[in-house]
């Protein structure tokens, strides 16, 4: 089984993140890049499926030079090879354009299953799986908390507020996964050593067959019109217990519509 896991490098979620005033884009340069958290679950699921079905896992990343650190980590976790789409002309691409680029590459390298994290911690749009499935003309099975593959049959549990739906599709397909699906492994030191020798193919914009005018900030279909800093956190409310603490606490919770 040929599994491709899409991996995005995002700014460390724990670091202070800012938007650049000149173009309203996230300042990625000054912050450490890490693998988008949900993508680690996607990698883990890809590895487990590959182990169970004698498959191969390819990491697909679009991003600047720095994203190669994240690719290295994914390979250290056990993925077999990687494709890194890197081109200055891609900077500032929005989700629609990114999906166009990734779909072109996926079409070329081929796949039985594409796995993605359900959303990225930076833009949090959660649309990539849908866009890719649409562009590739294959089923999208989203928000998977459990995945089973049997021949070309694909069965997942789709995470819902009330529990889960059982969803079936057939391969080839695109899945997005949620945190509940597994517990990502650590890269082992042997994995770190082995990763150095694993093939990483770099792909430029020209290689994708897309036109430079179709991608990048200038051609993006979406635009950040304005942004504002999050207001500082308000001081908490102190409820003083003068014999009626319980009532006051209940009133507060009711006032906030918690109860």
């Amino acid at each position, binding site marked *: 089984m040929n599994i491709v896991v899409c991996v995005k490098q995002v700014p*460390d*979620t*724990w670091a202070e993140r800012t938007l650049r005033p000149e173009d309203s884009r996230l300042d990625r340069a000054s912050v450490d890049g*890490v693998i988008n*958290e949900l993508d*680690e679950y996607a990698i883990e699921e890809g590895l487990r499926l590959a182990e169970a079905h004698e498959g191969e896992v390819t990491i697909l990343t679009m991003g600047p030079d720095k994203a190669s*650190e994240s690719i*290295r*980590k994914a390979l*250290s976790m056990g993925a077999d090879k990687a494709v890194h789409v890197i081109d200055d002309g891609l900077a500032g691409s929005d989700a629609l354009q990114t999906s166009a680029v990734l779909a072109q590459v996926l079409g070329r390298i081929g796949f039985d299953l594409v796995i993605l994290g359900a959303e990225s*911690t930076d833009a949090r749009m959660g649309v990539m799986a849908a866009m890719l499935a649409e562009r590739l003309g294959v089923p999208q099975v989203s928000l998977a908390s459990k995945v089973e593959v049997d021949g070309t049959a694909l069965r997942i549990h789709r995470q819902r507020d009330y529990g889960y739906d059982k969803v079936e599709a057939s391969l080839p397909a695109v899945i997005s996964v949620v945190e509940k699906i597994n*517990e*990502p*492994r*650590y*890269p*082992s*030191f*042997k*994995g*770190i*050593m082995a990763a*150095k020798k694993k093939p990483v193919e770099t792909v430029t914009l020209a290689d994708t067959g897309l036109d430079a005018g179709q991608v990048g900030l200038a051609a993006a279909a979406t635009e950040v019109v304005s942004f504002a800093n999050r207001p500082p956190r308000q001081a908490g409310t102190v409820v003083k217990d003068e014999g009626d603490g319980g009532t006051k606490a209940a009133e507060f919770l009711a006032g906030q519509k918690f109860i």
Partner: protein
Amino acid sequence: MPAHPAGQPGHDLDLLRVDQQLSSDEALVRDTVRAFTAERVMPHIADWFEAGTLPRELAPELGKLGLLGMHLTGYGCAGMGPVAYGVACRELEAADSGLRSLVSVQGSLAMFPIWKYGSPEQKDEWLPRMAAGEAIGCFGLTEPDHGSDPSSMATRAVRNGSDWLLSGSKMWITNGSVADIAVVWAQTQEGIRGFLVPRGARGFTSRAIHKKMSLRASITAELHFDDVKLPAGAMLPGVVGLKGPLSCLTEARFGIIWGVTGAARACLDAAVDYARTREQFGKPIGGFQLTQGKLAWMLADLSRAQLIALHLGRLKEAGELTPEQVSLGKMSNVRAAIEIARQARTILGANGITLEYPVIRHANNLESVLTYEGTEEIHALTLGQVLTGIPAYR
């Protein structure tokens, strides 16, 4: 796995950007060990320390990551460079010196002599299981009456036909009572030699040492050998003389040079945090000049220790590291770390003496680290001899 590599200091303490000198592999080792300790060790370490234990189950987990014998090649070992090994020690010891000791003893004191001086059969039998953490090793050099002067050891092995008979005692042996295999150094007619003594060998007993106030999250034991009969194949064929155990110690000391910078960093991190948030006399105690002076010196001492560690790591990579350089690093980095830990302790006031914060645990642990693997005084004598040409040991 939490996305955030906690164990990571909450404050930026790397003013000199020492970590920017790490390769991407080395940085990945750092992040991996941080994430592991954050998840598996930090939530429990205070309890383990208080209970005086380190769970055996950690060993296979450490093995799975590749930490055990990570700097050795073959036999299931990852074959990483010295700086990666150092960084791993640093991040382990940022959690606890006991955890780092487990890994140091396993990799540098037990696996290393087998890997370097063992027969092919000994390597095949022990190294893969030790790398996986299925078998635990210990290193028996120190004796009740022979500590800093191991050359005078009383443990003795005599030939008995093609076999050996081993008798004597070893003291302060890390992992001693949980080890599956003990690397024991003994006098023979040919000089000091190493022997592999498996757990359960007839006449071999061990007993855990209790009432320790330092390195509590680590097992320390005494070993007794009462005419233990060992086959010829139990002897390490590749080395005779004190240089055998000393070469192992040089490996392990290198890890300590890095390790203690982790403990020191954790203490400074806790102190900075506390100084910013604890208020007295109407302002954060970090706003008093005395506190700032302490913090500034802690940062300077930590930075110096980190640079020494990295520099010695690169020398080791180039195959140029000498035992004297290791003595300098061990002596000065452990001293720096223990001073930082004690200063941090003062900044935390009464909270500084509880296990709710990491500093008293680190400060107490570092008392052991100051003594084991060559006391501070013995390393000073090594450096004194380098400078004066006069050996002053006896």
